[in-house]
């Protein structure tokens, strides 16, 4: 029985298989519409999340399965002081697979050690969110046709953004990936990513302040939100925030085949005028999120 705690739990070969399956699901949804008849997914969400929970639930329903669960800790037995270990033992009697989100880091891993059913980490604090990274990788692979041999720009809050760190760790396993990190000085990638991940593996990267300065070199642009509260003072925020807002003008500097991704929710870092640009694929990314979760459920239930 396999659990998924981190995107690195899969080898690149295993990911290829998973993404091939997701591609087949995209092309032939009817083939998979009843494959999970009689199966149940438990969504154990100890903190609120709209997109991830609904994406998991849609994935299971698309496969013909049913879902049960809770969407915040207050409506679960955690409010009575029940441990994660005990909750998962109980859930194991009710469902065939579990997706768990928890504000405490490592909670899904604890659950996996006591579980009789596969557990998927649906986000644990600032630690891991593997299905977001799998979504990002599938989107790139499907729309770019390859994982590797490209220059990817990561823009915004690169210091605290777990999706960014996770994506970097996943992408360095592919050949010829160049990174351009676009952020204010205050929100640059952490030292351990720079030293232990990039330099240690001889991965080419550059760090720049302004999006306009590098957008023309990119095959992919991964946008994230720059939050006001991350800045030391209001003055810096006002001075810098426009550097990280993607609009039509900045898009005019980009290559005709550059793709724009975003883990969502978007606030104001991508102007709505960009939404109609065919290079803006962040809503397609949401759809790929469902496909990859469907592929993951099938793989973990050994129904693929």
């Amino acid at each position, binding site marked *: 029985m396999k659990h998924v705690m981190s995107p690195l739990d899969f080898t690149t070969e295993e990911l290829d298989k998973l993404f091939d399956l997701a591609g087949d699901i995209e092309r032939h949804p009817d083939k998979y519409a009843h494959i999970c008849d009689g199966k149940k997914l438990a969504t154990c969400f100890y903190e609120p999340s709209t997109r991830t929970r609904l994406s998991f639930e849609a994935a299971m329903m698309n496969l013909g399965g049913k879902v049960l669960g809770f969407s915040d800790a207050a409506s679960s037995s955690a409010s009575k002081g029940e*441990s994660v270990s005990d909750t998962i033992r109980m859930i194991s009697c009710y469902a065939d697979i579990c997706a768990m989100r928890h504000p405490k880091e490592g909670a899904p891993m604890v659950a996996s050690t006591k579980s009789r059913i596969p557990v998927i980490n649906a986000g644990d604090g*600032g630690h891991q969110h593997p299905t977001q990274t799998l979504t990002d990788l599938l989107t790139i692979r499907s729309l770019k046709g390859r994982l590797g041999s490209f220059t990817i720009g990561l823009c915004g809050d690169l210091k605290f953004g777990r999706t960014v760190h996770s994506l970097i760790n996943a992408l360095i396993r592919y050949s010829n990936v160049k990174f351009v990190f676009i952020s204010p000085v205050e929100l640059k990638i952490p030292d351990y990513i720079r030293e232990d991940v990039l330099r240690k593996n001889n991965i080419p990267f550059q760090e720049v302040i302004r999006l306009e300065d590098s957008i023309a070199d990119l095959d992919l642009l991964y946008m994230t939100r720059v939050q006001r509260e991350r800045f030391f003072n209001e003055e810096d925020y006002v001075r810098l925030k426009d550097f990280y807002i993607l609009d039509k003008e900045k898009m005019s500097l980009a290559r005709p085949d550059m793709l724009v991704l975003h883990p969502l929710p978007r606030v104001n870092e991508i102007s709505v005028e960009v939404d109609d640009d065919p290079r803006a694929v962040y809503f397609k990314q949401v759809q790929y999120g469902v496909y990859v979760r469907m592929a993951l459920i099938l793989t973990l239930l050994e129904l693929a």
Partner: protein
Amino acid sequence: MTDVNKTLDRKEVIYMLNVGKIEEGFVLDHIKAGKSLSIYHHLQLDKLDCTVAIIKNAKSGLMGKKDILKVECDIDKLNLDILGFIDHTITVNVIKNGEIVEKRKLELPKEIKNVIKCKNPRCITSIEQELPHIFVLTDTEKEIYRCKYCEEKCAEI
């Protein structure tokens, strides 16, 4: 204080500083100065019913100053994993019949359990009390241990 008491006190001091040979047990040498008490506690030597000598700030040609621990007990009672985790450069001399019969090499253990606690307030171990605190060796070169659950780097003990 009477003259008799003064004499007794001096005798005691002389006796304490003259730490003699041990017949059977182990001598932990080349401990970084000031670390011996921490090692004493982590090895739970306080729970053993045997002679333990803690020598602090001894002169060392190699280190300037060092600590030494002498323990008169069965070597198997020593948890080498904990010792390797604390400082794998410590020399472990095994003593039998008053002589050094073996020098054991310490290695960095792959995993340690319930030796230190994860200090990350966001870690699941901060709310689930019964969980064992496990740290895993993730970088042998830099000697980095990370919490098995949240992957937070272990702070120096």
